[in-house]
């Protein structure tokens, strides 16, 4: 079967399925002919098109934290210009909120010079975070955790991936949608500041595997098994702040974690599994058979050694039950500038109501001992307050600026 014939067949099907005006007698007749010719090849059903799906923008919480993560994201941090005062921040946030409200619903932004690119939102969400500098600039009260993280011995932080006054979190199931939204937002923000860094991330493409599966990182590990799910009471307790202008918002830690694929390659499969405490194939703990089985940290083997080693990542990450976070991670894979052929890693995004109480103790434990540290290095670190969502007519940050 020639590709051309196959394509013609597909068009005929689609016209019939969607009842397009073009699906007249001629198309039906053509389809009949095609069928006669191509009968031996079973045709898959027309692929579902989901570029039109939207996520509501307005609400109690910023939308990106209410849904399963999309396929691609762009995180952009900006430094505010010295001249931008409280009123300037307000003007900027009103513009950006308007852009976000329109783009996420599949509409062009005002003054959008490429409105056609906005027409397929593909679950686009646009979120905003405030760094310590922005909150200080407007004279707002800052939670104690809104500051750079304490230094960890494992850190090799680079300014190029750290800090920032304003965070834009743009995510969708389509990279063209993300590129256009980022461009539109940056055009409106450049009167107020400059881009400090941009970090792009990806997961499996939409439809490659069933929705709801835990992502894999570029070490091949199932990454993020223990994670509260948006929309559950468990998630609400872990993530949302309860008081002040941040009520309905949260604290965000972004860590850019370089993963050394070259040295990881030296590790054979059993050693890789011991370093984390999970099976690579299923993500199941070494003491279980399925991904979500509870690990048995007391189990020992015939020689009396723990089945899940003392240095295993999942043992070290587990705290006293209070130290829980919501992870929304993305892989990165960018051109290498060094001696390695690869420059890859994880945009480790951690959301929690109180960074000091929930994230920092866990990070301290992992910095002290976690075999994964052998192959991973934090090279970027940033902390942002994620304000709550807004109502129609309001804007992201209005709880801070209209207080």
């Amino acid at each position: 079967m020639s590709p051309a014939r196959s394509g013609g067949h597909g068009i005929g099907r689609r016209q019939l399925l969607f009842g397009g005006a073009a699906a007249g007698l001629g198309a039906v007749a053509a389809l009949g002919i095609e069928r006669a010719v191509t009968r031996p090849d079973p045709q898959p059903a027309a692929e579902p098109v989901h570029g039109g799906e939207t996520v509501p923008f307005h609400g109690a919480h910023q939308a990106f934290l209410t849904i399963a993560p999309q396929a691609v994201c762009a995180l952009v941090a900006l430094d505010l210009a010295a001249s931008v005062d409280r009123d300037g921040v307000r003007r900027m946030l009103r513009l950006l909120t308007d852009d976000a409200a329109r783009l996420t619903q599949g509409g062009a932004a005002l003054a959008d010079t490429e409105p056609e690119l906005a027409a397929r939102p593909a679950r686009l969400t646009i979120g905003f975070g405030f760094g310590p500098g922005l909150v200080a600039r407007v004279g707002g009260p800052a939670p104690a955790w809104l500051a750079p993280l304490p230094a960890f011995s494992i850190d090799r932080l680079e300014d190029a991936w750290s800090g920032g006054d304003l965070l834009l979190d743009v995510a969708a199931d389509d990279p063209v949608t993300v590129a256009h939204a980022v461009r539109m937002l940056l055009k409106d923000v450049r009167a107020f500041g400059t881009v400090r860094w941009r970090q792009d991330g990806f997961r499996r493409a939409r439809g490659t595997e069933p929705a709801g599966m835990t992502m894999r990182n570029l070490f091949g590990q199932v990454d993020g098994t223990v994670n509260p799910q948006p929309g559950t009471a468990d998630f609400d307790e872990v993530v949302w702040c309860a008081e002040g202008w941040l009520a309905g918002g949260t604290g965000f830690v972004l860590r850019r974690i370089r993963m050394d694929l070259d040295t990881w390659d030296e590790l054979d499969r059993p050693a890789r599994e011991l370093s984390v405490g999970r099976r690579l194939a299923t993500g199941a703990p070494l003491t279980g058979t399925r991904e979500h089985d509870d690990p048995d940290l007391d189990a020992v083997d015939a020689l009396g050694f723990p089945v899940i080693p003392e240095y295993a990542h999942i043992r070290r990450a587990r705290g006293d039950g209070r130290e829980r976070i919501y992870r929304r991670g993305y892989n990165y894979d960018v051109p290498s500038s060094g001696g390695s052929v690869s420059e890859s890693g994880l945009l480790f995004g951690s959301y929690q109501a109180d960074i000091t109480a929930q994230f920092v103790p866990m990070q301290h434990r992992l910095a002290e001992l976690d075999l994964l540290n052998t192959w991973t290095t934090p090279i970027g670190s940033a902390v942002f307050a994620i304000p709550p969502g807004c109502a129609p007519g309001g804007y992201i940050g209005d709880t801070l600026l209209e207080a």
Partner: protein
Amino acid sequence: MHITGVRRALAALALVTALALAGCAAPSADPAPSAPAAAVAVTDAWVKAAEGGMTAAFATITNDGDADVSLVGVSTEAASMVQLHETVADADGNTSMQEKAGGFRIPAGDARLLEPGGDHIMLMGLTGPLQPGDEVELVLVFDDGAERTVRAPVKEFVGAKEEYSHGADTAGGGAHDGMSGEHDAPGDGHGGHAE
């Protein structure tokens, strides 16, 4: 300042004539009586940022009514003079903008897009800088007497650079007197209201 007088005159003109009209500085606080029959809506309004001089406003005007209407004037405190401009191409393909005599007609059941490179609302003699994120209140006046007030955000925009057909520079700040002169000469040959 004869704001009230100018405003009243503007409304009267709107009702009786299709002459090109000037926008004018007007207090936007007092809502003027408007004809309830007009099913016209103004959405997606925005203004190109400018430090001074002149700039342009854009919007979508929708007419859900049974009768055609025309936008015949706009007033705002942000500018001392407002004109309705169309963009035209000359024989060489160069585009320039000129005042649209008779205003912008919106047929019944139709919409008209005011956008860079096309029809737009020209704000001249800005009364102050228009910075990104500011909001400009615009009062759009239609030939049936209806008025619509919108708040248009100001956005940084590098397009919309068409030359004014009478030689004024869009970025200039000192071209007002010349332009007022042009404006004061009605019937400058663009009376083609028929579309």
